[in-house]
């Protein structure tokens, strides 16, 4: 697809040392600020908003593997989030598994469903894939609502256990409704996922994904098993969403099917695009911006979502390529195709 010249020259940053050094110091600074923030500003509401935004960061990073790295448009990503949340919720309520034990299976269940969806769905190309994934998202949400004996139906799952940690010297500390422990939990997971994503983007697999994104035909001519790699991307992205789902379920204690609707899938996609497709730091920033904005706009009361919509439009006019995306090259891009 010709339009993709706009976003190709991305992975060569390691050759520009000053830029790279700047980038690393940016990451380090961001992490340091995130670490000390709750200590200098222990405001539970602000921490809760940031924790929720952190869950969005994890989700956006996962979707970025699918959409940003590999170029597969996915409109049902909230389904994997739901599968992770319900897997942990059910393992906890039915089998009494604690959070730390349930986290792995939640990610695995979501990852597996990503692979299982991918095997038939990735035969479909381009925008048709978007509608297949959208359909999948709706199917999962409606199934969760309707399978009342297992999922609690519209009531959802109530009383899911919060995490607990063992601290040497002071025994077991159980998370309650306090914001701070979740903040650090989400921060730790988000940082780990970010590191994994950065590494993955630069790895052999990551380069193969980029090749598929830029030109699938050329990639397969180079001997890349495009189908297998696309399924892998879907699986990895879904597993990350499953991780986020388990954390979300543990934080909320209650999950209901309406937390996982199409709007959520679209919002996560918007975070990825706003940050800059394929750019890990862009995605982190995009998720933080769109995740906190509705709370920041509370002062507008009824006009809140109106303002939110207007800001989304203006942001894209201001930086059409995303906050950290590369500006479109002026050569070789045909007008109409690039537009769409």
């Amino acid at each position, binding site marked *: 697809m010709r339009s993709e010249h706009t976003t190709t020259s991305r992975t060569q940053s390691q050759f520009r040392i000053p830029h790279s050094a700047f980038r690393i110091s940016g990451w380090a600074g961001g992490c340091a600020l995130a670490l000390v923030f709750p200590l200098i500003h222990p405001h539970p*509401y602000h921490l809760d908003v940031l924790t929720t935004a952190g869950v969005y960061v994890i989700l956006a990073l996962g979707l970025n593997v699918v959409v940003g790295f590999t170029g597969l448009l996915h409109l049902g990503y909230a389904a994997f989030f739901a599968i992770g949340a319900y897997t942990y919720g059910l393992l906890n309520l039915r089998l009494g598994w604690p959070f730390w034990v349930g986290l792995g299976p939640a990610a695995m269940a979501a990852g597996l469903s990503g692979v299982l969806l991918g095997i038939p769905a990735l035969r479909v190309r381009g925008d048709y894939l978007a509608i297949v994934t959208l359909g999948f998202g709706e199917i999962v949400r409606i199934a969760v609502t309707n399978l009342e004996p297992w999922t609690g139906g*519209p*009531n959802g799952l*109530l009383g899911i256990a919060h995490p607990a940690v063992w601290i040497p010297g002071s025994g077991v500390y159980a998370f309650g409704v306090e914001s701070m422990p979740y903040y650090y939990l989400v921060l730790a997971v988000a940082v780990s996922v970010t590191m994994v994503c950065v590494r993955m983007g630069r790895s052999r697999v990551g380069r193969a994904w980029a090749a598929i994104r830029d030109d699938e035909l050329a990639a397969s001519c180079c001997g890349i098993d495009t189908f297998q790699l696309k399924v892998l991307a879907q699986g990895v992205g879904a597993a990350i969403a499953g991780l986020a789902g388990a954390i979300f379920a543990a934080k*909320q204690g209650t999950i209901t099917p309406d*937390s996982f609707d199409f709007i959520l899938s679209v919002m996560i996609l918007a975070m990825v695009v706003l940050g800059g497709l394929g750019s890990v730091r862009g995605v982190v920033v995009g998720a933080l911006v769109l995740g906190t904005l509705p709370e920041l706009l509370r002062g507008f009361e009824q006009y*809140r979502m109106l303002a939110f919509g207007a800001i989304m439009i203006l942001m894209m006019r201001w930086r059409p390529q995303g906050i950290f995306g590369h500006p479109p090259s002026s050569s070789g891009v045909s007008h109409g195709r690039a537009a769409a």
Partner: protein
Amino acid sequence: MSVRFLWALLLVLAGCGRQDPVVKLGFVAPLTGDQAPQGQSMRNGAVLALEQAKARGDILPGYRVELVELDDQHSPTQAVAAAKKLAADPDVVAVVGNLNSSCTMPASAIYYQARMLQITPVSSNPQISRQGFDTFYRTCATDDLQGPAAALFVARELGARRVFLLDDMTTYGRGLANEFKKKLRALGAQVLGHEGITQGDKDFTPLLTKIKALAPDLVYFAGMFPEGALLIKQRAEVGLGGRFMGGDGLFDPVLIELATPQAADGIYLTTIGSDVHRIPTAQEFVKAYEARYGSIGAYSAYAYEATSIALWAMQRAGTKDRRAVLAAMKTLHDYPGLFGLQNFDERGDSLIRDIGLFTVKNGKFVFLKTASWD
């Protein structure tokens, strides 16, 4: 920063200094999004309650009482964020909210931990008050009363033997329909089927055509009035006979307008509490509300009641302190509310458990009687 700005700042600060200190009452409901109609009619009730209390002077003396309205968009995540926002604001001593049980449930844990009085006007899921939170109160009856009351009426008085159930696949709708079904089966009536519809959907003719082929004596719908109105109207269009009954989610005059008075004629519905229009103690509210906002929404009166009680507890506490407000709430006895003398049980559930029974005649809700649930 200019000198003029500093002067202005100083003036503002001086202005604040002269006024009474602020004490806030939180209010959380879906004010935007698909449930905005219900949330906004609740907000109107809450605003009215505060204004009337102020006019009467029934507020915490020496303070300026403010209502902090927060939107939860009927999302549990946003309900938790809103709860934390209120909990973190030392000026907020109590909260009225939320609408949806799925939001009230996770939020109640945060208010409990913050030792903050929470009164939900209408979240009717029985589970919420069984968590053992002494901060939780509610002014409405729970679904395990309304459902059985409707079933008793259907089986004993309407004599319906073959019933088809519909709900809107929400916490509220499914919960109510299940309670109805349980009691109906116990009474020996036959449930021909139980189906869910999607909120926001408009076309129920395929489903109603299917039900028509089963020829039930009655169709019961547990859900909200926008879908209820379409079901009632389309039921007439496809020629589905038999009777139609619904829950309190239908109790909004807009239902009759949307469904057309002809199609709505003769339907039955239950409400939590009896008709506010008929309760002598509620007349002042009815007049004031209708003069200002038009027709009373299904939940306006409950929001009014919950807000009035929260304001009473704040006044009773006599000080801007959450624990004092909570302690004052526990002393509540025979509060003269909209629906009569209000008292709460040890779980925080209202002891006014009247289930009203209505029908529609000539485009108006007509009160039949107070229904019993056993």
